[in-house]
């Protein structure tokens, strides 16, 4: 049953991957003649023609596409025009930074959002619940670049507890992690709260109470497991966002991860890098949703059956 489920999900994931692959390729070519932008502003018509032949841009699009797919399948994404390096090396150098940042951000977000969400649900409509909602509202409303700067001034400059920018040690990831976590906390917290309120009002919780189970067993075993599924799904999306979309944070804290690379290569029209980064981020998203689906199937036996 579980294998069947896994196979179906994998098939869907592969289809999405193929679609993204096509879009990544076509979209980079919709931005104008790549040969002109590669050759630069001072190039003559002859230079441009030469560039076009050198990069194979003179050939029909389907041929170019199949060639790119063929190479990409072996891990070869070609040479970056701007960085004058292999695209694959460029990406692999930056992946650890991005992953570290994402994991720190998500762990911080979960360790704040889950307990607060549960407490808010158990004390629904009390002052504790309201206070927690206000904290969540602040997290939602605060622009992350601004929070980043405030933390830099406070924790970095005045208190001197944490380094302000760079990637030298684990301490460098704390502040950007906090900023990322802040943006993820409101959604996680509200889903946890809503899920727990629903679960605690359910018939099976009444049964659990009628069985005389302890409070902790009722809340953490019986209610939390059923409230967890939407939280798992949204956490996967949040992590995907942290890994791919944290360009602002990476810029503010001078963490040159994949997000920063994406932004740089887009602005420089470095199409081999753009294509590769888009594909990579799409694959990460797909893997994360797949992981979330699998985790949910472990949590809820009914999903395994359908």
């Amino acid at each position, binding site marked *: 049953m579980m294998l069947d489920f896994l196979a179906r999900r994998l098939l869907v994931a592969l289809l999405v991957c193929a679609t993204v692959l096509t879009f990544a390729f076509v979209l980079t070519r919709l931005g104008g003649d790549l040969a002109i932008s590669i050759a630069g502003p001072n190039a003559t018509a002859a230079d441009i023609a030469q560039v076009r032949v050198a990069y194979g841009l003179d050939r029909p699009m389907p041929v170019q596409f199949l060639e790119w797919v063929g190479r990409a399948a072996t891990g070869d994404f070609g040479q970056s025009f701007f960085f004058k390096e292999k695209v694959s090396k460029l990406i692999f150098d930056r992946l650890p930074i991005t992953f570290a940042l994402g994991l720190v951000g998500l762990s911080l977000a979960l360790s704040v959002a889950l307990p607060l969400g549960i407490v808010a649900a158990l004390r629904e409509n009390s002052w504790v619940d309201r206070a927690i909602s206000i904290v969540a509202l602040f997290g939602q409303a605060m622009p992350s670049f601004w929070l980043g700067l405030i933390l830099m001034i406070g924790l970095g400059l005045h208190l001197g507890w944490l380094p302000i920018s760079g990637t030298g040690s684990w301490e460098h990831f704390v502040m950007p992690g906090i900023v990322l976590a802040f943006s993820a906390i409101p959604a996680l917290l509200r889903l946890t709260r809503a899920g727990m309120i629903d679960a605690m009002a*359910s*018939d099976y919780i009444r049964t659990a109470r*009628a069985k*005389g189970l*302890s409070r902790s067993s009722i809340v953490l075993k019986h209610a939390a497991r059923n409230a967890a599924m939407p939280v798992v799904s949204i956490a996967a999306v949040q992590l995907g966002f942290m890994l791919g979309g944290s360009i602002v944070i990476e810029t503010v804290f001078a963490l040159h991860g994949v997000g920063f690379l994406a932004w740089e290569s887009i602005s420089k029209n470095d199409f081999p890098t753009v294509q590769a980064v888009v594909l990579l981020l799409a694959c990460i998203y797909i893997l994360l949703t797949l992981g979330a689906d699998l985790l949910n199937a472990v949590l809820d036996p*009914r999903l395994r*059956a359908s």
Partner: protein
Amino acid sequence: MTRLLEVEDLEVGFGDVSAVRGASLAIERGETHCLVGESGCGKSVTALAIMGLLARNATRRAARLSFDGQDLRGLDERGMSRLRGDRMAMIFQEPMTSLNPAYTVGSQMAEVMLRHRGGTRAAAMARAEDLLGRVRITSPGMRLGQYPHQLSGGLRQRVMIAMALMCEPELLIADEPTTALDVTVQAQILRLLLDLQRDLGLAILLITHDLGVVARVAHRVSVMYAGEVVESAPVEALFAHPTHPYTSGLLGCVPVPGKVARGAPLGSIAGVVPRLGPEFRGCGFRDRCAHAAPACAQTIARRAAGPRHDYLCRLEPGLAGDAR
């Protein structure tokens, strides 16, 4: 020996609505006590109040609420949770949603044992398997590993019953346990409850609105109306000499083959159960009662109609019977 459960003057309120207004109830060891009445009369709330399972916005007061001589009123949540599932158990009307969808039947049954009696998980599982067999579920060993969604409603209710019996409770409260089930399954579940009661010496408080069920299974019946127990009697006495006008009306609603002519209109009681506030005095049934008089707005005293037969009406016994 004291009675197993004694409830006197139980009051439960939700904000400005009084769901239970001074209900009294006593259950002997090993007896089947049926609590009957229309929807909204406070039957379920009474049961939840006894178990200490009321919602947080409810208020509970009672002159007496004791289980096996122990006063339940002073017990906090922790103290009540030691009794629940161990010495008093409850099953509900909704078998489809009363089991946790995320855990197997076996683990949900075993945790009751582990919580109250300790021991190994294997021993608890063995006990669970034994009980699944007792509630006549086929291949109980296989069922232990199944999830609720793999079982039918009837099977789930059997699992609920088996789970309630894990620690051999003295009292089982069954809140309309067959209402949500098919008619054929209803009969099986009722027979099962009766057999278990005989074998285990269990006291059952069976909440139902089905007088046919009452006639078949009850030793004693309490009729509830608008938050009060208006009449309580041994089952034979209640059916032979209903004394409260509401009881008479209720019995008049049941068509008896042979006694009721074909095509004759079925009996009914005009109106609905009123929602009463805490300031309400007197008989809650007076707006629907043929015998209503100004005196019904006064506080009514409980009176005896026979041995272990009491009722709550200003009329003498025998006068209300002609309401039928």
